[in-house]
């Protein structure tokens, strides 16, 4: 897919996912211990993927601990913000240029590779 082409998202599907994201982040607050997610990729290779730290970040954002959230993965803050925006603004369709997805994943990956001192 050319980078300028758009990925189409259905608004009602995004609202369901946005609500699940915030509910999931809230549910993790109930855990008495911080849950370290040991992902198979990092367990096997030691290399983090662009989504590393997202669970921690979303969970921290939901309890408004933005410092911890950004430290884990800044994209978690943006994802929760996007979820709130989708729930409030109720767009029927969102078209995201593929280029934005590529750029976001690349930026997240560089951040995580630095965080785990791979770079």
């Amino acid at each position, binding site marked *: 897919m050319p980078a300028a082409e758009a990925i189409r*998202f*259905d608004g009602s599907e995004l609202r369901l996912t946005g609500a699940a994201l915030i509910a999931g982040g809230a549910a993790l607050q109930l855990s008495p211990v911080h849950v370290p997610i040991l992902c198979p990729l990092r367990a096997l290779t030691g290399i983090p993927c662009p989504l590393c730290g997202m669970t921690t970040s979303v969970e921290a954002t939901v309890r408004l601990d933005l410092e911890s959230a950004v430290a884990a993965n800044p994209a978690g803050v943006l994802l929760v913000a996007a979820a709130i925006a989708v729930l409030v603004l109720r767009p029927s369709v969102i078209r*995201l240029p593929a280029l934005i997805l590529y750029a976001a994943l690349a930026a997240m990956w560089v951040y995580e590779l630095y965080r785990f001192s791979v770079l």
Partner: protein
Amino acid sequence: MSTVDPQQPATSYPAGGPSGPRASFGRRLVAYLLDSIIVGIVYGIAYAISKPIGGVVSILVGLIYFSYFDGSARGQTIGKMALGIRVIDFRGGGPIGFGRGFIRWLGRILSSIPCFLGYLWALWDKEKQGWHDKIATTVVVPVSDYPITKS
């Protein structure tokens, strides 16, 4: 004189395009996000219960979740159910079973190593297959075009 096989579908798909309708990337991405949330929550509960074996449980939750649901007769994780898409065998069109569901899960790890390139592959692949689809010989399709049949 040629005979027409009534069993043969009349629809033909353009050369150079996919060999049938394929699930959109947006739907697959949202389904993946939903599945990640569900796996995260299940893992959170499992970890709270069995802290010493938390690391092992972490991997097992994802392994069993994706292998079982993608390999089920419906070919759907909970995220795929919500989004109306399913995994089918590329050649036969049927369910893939737990074993190939597991292979597909292993493929997911491979797909995510180079900055999710294996997942993004579905954006430009002719059959909209990610690497994990290619490894498990699967395609992801809309349920509207490939209804779940009870066998």
